[in-house]
């Protein structure tokens, strides 16, 4: 056991820290919502700056524009971004999940066409997986692709697709063989979102922003060269991508949660606690023993999550595969974020219901609403518990 950083890891961190100190942009001036075009351009510019400095797609092999970084360096990157309060990486889906899948099984043409734009932020990708009737049971998906000469013709509907309203490309799962068993007739297509016949309809989340969408495909022609991997071999591609998705969401979310807790702690002295609940008189939230318990609980949850995430990374680095700790990470952080934001709402008292995001109350209430989605997106908590029960604990399939 050795939890110290190696000399090269330390050098990586110090270099990154120095780079961030002189390259971090000013915080975005307006409402930081994903439907805001100015915000999108702000984020694209940030990703380009990261790319030019070699900090985009760290774990990608050097031959494809990455730097072949270790999982530990990737984790240091996320930590330093959090420490510096850096903006989000807008092309995270492409960098974390689609790029690595293209590297693993894409053709040379596909690698040439997509990898560098994914890193630079020139191409934003979305992931066309879920359908109205295929949620947790993803393999039952019904969007059809029928061969017509050199093309496939796609018809159907996707839903809950993050970034589709701004995406240039879609990583799309379609059914190419309806007669086969449900896992066997699926193909993965790389689809240009400007193709004729694609309609994107934003869906508002209960938090108010429109970060996800419905996509309708009506006789959309996709050249056969856009198949990723084998025709009818898309399920394996999907599983690889989903595993990456869970791991990557976890890394990114660490930034977000730590930042939220810091904001909350900084606000505590300004949050009044009524004297009616404290016989000794009114006090600030920072002094209230009940508040202190909740804040400390959020802090320790977040720390333990971080330690487990580091352990999972170390395991990937030595064994090449995630250990049991890997599968519990998404379950852990999504539920921890719900506990934390719920606690923040209780601390804020009547102010918790206020929605102006220029004030800390709005930040808290937004985070509280957004957190409800965490236990649903990228695998519901129920599906994740099924996976842990079956694949780690060895129970029989329960559905």
């Amino acid at each position, binding site marked *: 056991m050795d*939890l110290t*950083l190696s000399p090269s890891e330390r050098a990586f961190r110090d270099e990154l820290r120095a780079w961030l100190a002189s390259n971090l942009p000013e915080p975005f001036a307006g409402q930081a919502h994903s439907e805001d075009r100015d915000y999108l351009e702000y984020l694209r510019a940030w990703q380009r700056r990261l790319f030019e400095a070699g900090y985009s797609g760290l774990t990608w092999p050097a031959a494809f524009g990455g730097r072949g970084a270790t999982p530990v360096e990737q984790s240091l990157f996320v930590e330093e971004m959090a420490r510096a309060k850096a903006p989000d990486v807008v092309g995270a889906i492409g960098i974390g999940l689609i790029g690595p899948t293209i590297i693993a099984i894409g053709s040379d043409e596909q690698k040439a066409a997509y990898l560098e734009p994914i890193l630079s932020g020139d191409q934003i990708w979305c992931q066309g997986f879920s359908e109205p009737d295929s949620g947790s049971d993803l393999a039952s998906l019904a969007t059809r692709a029928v061969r017509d000469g050199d093309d496939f013709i796609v018809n159907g509907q996707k839903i809950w697709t993050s970034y589709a309203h701004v995406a240039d490309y879609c990583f799309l799962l379609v059914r190419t063989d309806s007669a086969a068993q449900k896992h066997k007739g699926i193909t993965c297509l790389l689809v240009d979102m400007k193709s004729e016949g694609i309609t994107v309809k934003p869906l508002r989340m209960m938090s108010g922003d429109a970060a996800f969408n419905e996509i309708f495909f009506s006789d959309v022609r996709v050249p056969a060269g856009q198949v990723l991997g084998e025709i009818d071999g898309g399920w394996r591609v999907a599983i690889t991508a989903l595993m990456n998705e869970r791991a990557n969401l976890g890394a990114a979310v660490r930034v977000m949660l730590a930042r939220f807790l810091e904001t909350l702690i900084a606000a505590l002295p300004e949050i009044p606690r009524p004297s009616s609940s404290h016989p000794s008189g009114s006090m600030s939230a920072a002094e209230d023993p009940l508040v202190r318990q909740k804040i*400390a609980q959020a802090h*320790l949850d977040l720390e*333990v999550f971080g330690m487990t995430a580091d352990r999972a990374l170390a395991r990937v680095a030595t064994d090449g595969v995630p250990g049991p700790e890997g599968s*519990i990470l998404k379950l852990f952080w999504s539920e921890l974020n719900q506990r934390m934001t719920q606690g923040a709402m209780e601390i804020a008292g009547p102010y918790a219901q206020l929605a102006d995001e220029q004030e800390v109350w709005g930040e808290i209430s937004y985070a509280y609403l957004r957190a409800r989605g965490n236990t649903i997106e990228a695998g519901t908590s129920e599906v994740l518990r099924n996976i842990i*029960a079956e694949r*780690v604990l060895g129970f*029989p399939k329960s559905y």
Partner: protein
Amino acid sequence: MDFELSKPQKLLQSSVRELLSRECPTERVRELMATETAFDEGLWQHLADQGLIGLTLPEEHEGMGLGAVELAAVAEVMGSFCLPGPFLSNHWASTLLATAGNNNLAEAYLEPIVDGTLRATIALLEASGDWDPAGVTATAKAQPAGGGYRLDGNKLFVSDADTAGLILWVARLGDELAIFSLSAGIAGMEIEAMPAIDATRKLYRVTLSDVTVPSDRLLAGGEQARAALAFATREATIAACAELVGGMQWITNTTVEYAKSRQQFGKPIGAFQAVQHRCADLLLHLESARSATYSAAWAVAENDPEVDRLVSVTKAYCSDAAREVASSGIQVHGGIGFTWEHDLQLYFKRAKSNELLFGDATYHRERIARMIIDR
């Protein structure tokens, strides 16, 4: 960065596992529970012979000079066997002896401790139940003309006092903390059992009334006493967390195995999602507690500047997690899990006593709050 135990650390673990499967099966645990002291001289000597009593004590006092990670590795195995007796309390006290900066007392007592002939414990808690030494009220008064100290006070929840030959007594000398090294059974000392639900480790009330001890019994005072006690408590807290991890591992294994074999409605209960999801949560708690415990053990071993915060994070997490895991394990077992006959009750009760030992989650959350809110 590497979380895996090294080869020597794994060897150490398997030697402890081998020893305890031979010398401490649960039948033996139950026999010891039923005794007055839960102490087994023979078993203790085995632990001493393998170097486990002096595991982290300095080599100059015949210890092995290993660190907190090795301690965690050993304590995890002990927790998985629900080892009865004074390992933790003795580790806590001997670490305090070794770090208090008093060579005379360290020399006099550490060797007999390491070789297994003497045991020590710390008398800290009082009626307030406060683990923070700042709350100590037992008094020490310097007697005129080098006449030593007069000690009075009432200590509660003192682990294994009946089998300890040496009691390290935490008192207040004026405004300062002072720790005295007292031989058990000196005139004016009264030791009285406090029967508790975890019968594998016994608790006692220790009372001193009008006891005068010579000056050379003062182990440490002031800042030195505070720092040494903090150091010893940090290390022992990690050992308690590791014991909890070992216990959680036993409960998780036993529960998953049971859910796979117990049939109802014509299939194993582990085929039902309600049971599967409970078991998935056992694993989540277990593995998270393990990540935290070894990270904190590493921080202790390396004297990380954040060590106090990390130890509190870990103790708070493990305390709550172990209670949840033990409760859930019983629930999955149904009626049999609630019986005296099933060994789950041993681990359930140990989870509770370790939860309280060195401060429960509420105590450690307040410590965390001081570090992250009041900084």
